[in-house]
């Protein structure tokens, strides 16, 4: 009876240790991933969400330099052939949000790579950023698949992209 109780206590102790070790290893890995790959914050600005993602993927502001976003807002009456009809209040709110969260403001490894590869250019498409083009060189052919549509549809493969995580990738058939 007594041995039984000792066994049980030992078992509980070992189980407890294993669990806490596991949990801290998991936390460590999560933390390191965050630092290593520079995840982005999910978009919280409702105006940006409503105005921009009604027509296309909700691009994260950290994927382009501030001057690119500025150019896009300035040309919003000729946005890839469309007049976005943004009123002044709306466009200044969106502009403020994009500027505050642009690639140079979000100091992640990805943002730094984007900024470095862009040099002094002002790309108006995320797929015009040299580093991002390079990262996609092996999946170029997948862009034309009906399940993807075009290179502008990030979410087709980056299944957790809207949450700021572009590491999780699943290219659909």
């Amino acid at each position, binding site marked *: 009876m007594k041995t039984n109780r000792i066994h049980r206590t030992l078992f509980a102790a070992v189980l407890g240790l294993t669990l806490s070790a596991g949990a801290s290893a998991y936390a460590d890995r999560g933390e390191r991933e965050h630092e290593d790959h520079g995840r982005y914050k999910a978009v919280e600005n409702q105006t940006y969400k409503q105005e921009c*993602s*009604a*027509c296309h*993927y909700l691009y994260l502001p950290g994927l382009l330099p501030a001057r690119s976003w500025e150019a896009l807002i300035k040309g919003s009456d000729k946005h890839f*052939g469309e*007049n*976005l*009809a943004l009123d002044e209040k709306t466009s200044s709110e969106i502009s403020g949000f994009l500027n505050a969260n642009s690639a140079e403001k979000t100091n992640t490894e990805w943002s730094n790579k984007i900024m470095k590869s862009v040099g002094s250019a002002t790309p108006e498409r995320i797929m015009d950023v040299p580093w991002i083009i390079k990262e996609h060189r092996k999946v170029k052919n997948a862009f034309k698949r009906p399940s993807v549509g075009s290179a*502008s*549809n990030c979410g087709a493969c980056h299944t957790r992209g809207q949450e700021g995580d572009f590491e999780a990738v699943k290219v659909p058939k």
Partner: protein
Amino acid sequence: MRRGILAFVTLGTLLVSGGAWAVLNPDVQMLVDKYRLEADVKSFSAEDGKRFFATKRKHSKGEERSCSTCHTNDPRQKGKTVVGKVIEPMAQSVNKERFTDPKKVEKWFKRNCEWVLERECTPKEKGDFITFMTTM
């Protein structure tokens, strides 16, 4: 009893004549009234709206465009933008949020009339369009 019958008959009449029986909130009703004054018409036509929605026009870029290019031929179905993003149905009967916010209505007319027609829509076109979308 008599009143019950009367109510039933009234309801029946409304349903039968219900072709153009739209329930708009006061804000959107005001917008439609404004269009009606500008267009100088007594009422709008769901039929004209339907035709307007489906009419294909040659765009200066070469291709044919219509409202249905993105919204499909049936406004009760989901549509797709030119880059493939899903658009919720336009018909109010299946999407209660449609035509409830006049600012939103005006903004999308401005965006999409230019895309399809390369000009703004006329008050008559807008009124017919809303009537079609809220009565079908």
